[in-house]
């Protein structure tokens, strides 16, 4: 059994344009990430008693807290309300895993500042298409 992954081994890229995986990261110094992937199901019984599941939708919610970088790319993406793709990677020298998230939107970009701490922002975005690798 391969080793598990830990935080220093992961990376998160957010980019625009086509969905080809990009190597230009815009989320640096990331602090926290969360990626729930959800399906909606209509679960019902037919007249013969057989149960069926019909998918009613799917949605991924990406949230990331990150230390503020000198780069304003994310803020510009948010301002333009453009579609974004994300590559959420866990990787180490033994294995790799993660998700591609396609054609989503940034829902929320929150700036935070307080005494004795760097400025940070929190990013929330949603996606309806993804694939695992």
């Amino acid at each position, binding site marked *: *059994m391969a*080793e*598990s*992954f*830990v*935080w*220093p081994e992961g990376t998160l890229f957010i980019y625009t344009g086509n969905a080809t995986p990009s190597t230009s990261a815009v989320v640096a110094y990331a602090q926290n990430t969360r990626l729930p992937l959800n399906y909606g199901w209509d679960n019902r019984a037919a007249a013969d008693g057989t149960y069926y599941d019909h998918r009613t939708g799917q949605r991924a919610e990406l949230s990331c807290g990150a230390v503020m970088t000198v780069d304003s790319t994310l803020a510009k993406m948010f301002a333009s309300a453009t579609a974004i793709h994300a590559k959420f990677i866990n990787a180490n020298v033994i294995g790799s895993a993660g998700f591609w998230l396609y054609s989503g939107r940034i829902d929320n970009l929150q700036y935070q500042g307080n005494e004795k701490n760097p400025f940070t922002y929190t990013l929330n975005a949603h996606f309806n298409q993804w694939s695992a690798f």
Partner: protein
Amino acid sequence: MSAEVRIMAEGTLRGVQGSGSGRTWGTASAPASGLYGYVQNGMNLTSAQTITTIMERGRPDHHKVSEVSPIKVTVSQLLSYQTGVNTPFNVLTASGATVPMQHLEWRVSAPEVGAGGGTGMYYQFLGVATESIKVTEDTKGNKYDFSFVCLAMVGPTGSGYLS
């Protein structure tokens, strides 16, 4: 065969003005550098990392490094003009960083090793920022204590940058 044990009198501690950011030995243009003078017993450092042990149904299975901590360095020395009254808070940095930064090098003389230049073992402390200075008057010499934190360290190596 093992080299000899070292003692404090065989070591030197030097510093150089850094440039930019990151865990590399980048120095400023025409950087200020020099030997820290009259370093007393007790220079010490702690390099640490956080290990998370992954359990497999109640048994330790493998280790993971979940955090590498910044390295703390403390230096006790006697105050003189040579120790640099202007340092460490007034160390200048070039473009790319906002915090005055320097690099330190600790050289331990080891002439019997005979490899890699053969005369010493070196530890480099990269990206050193000052946390505190403390001045104390004393009849045996006024004390001037530094406390640093650095981004990374390298060592021991067979050659040094400063000595």
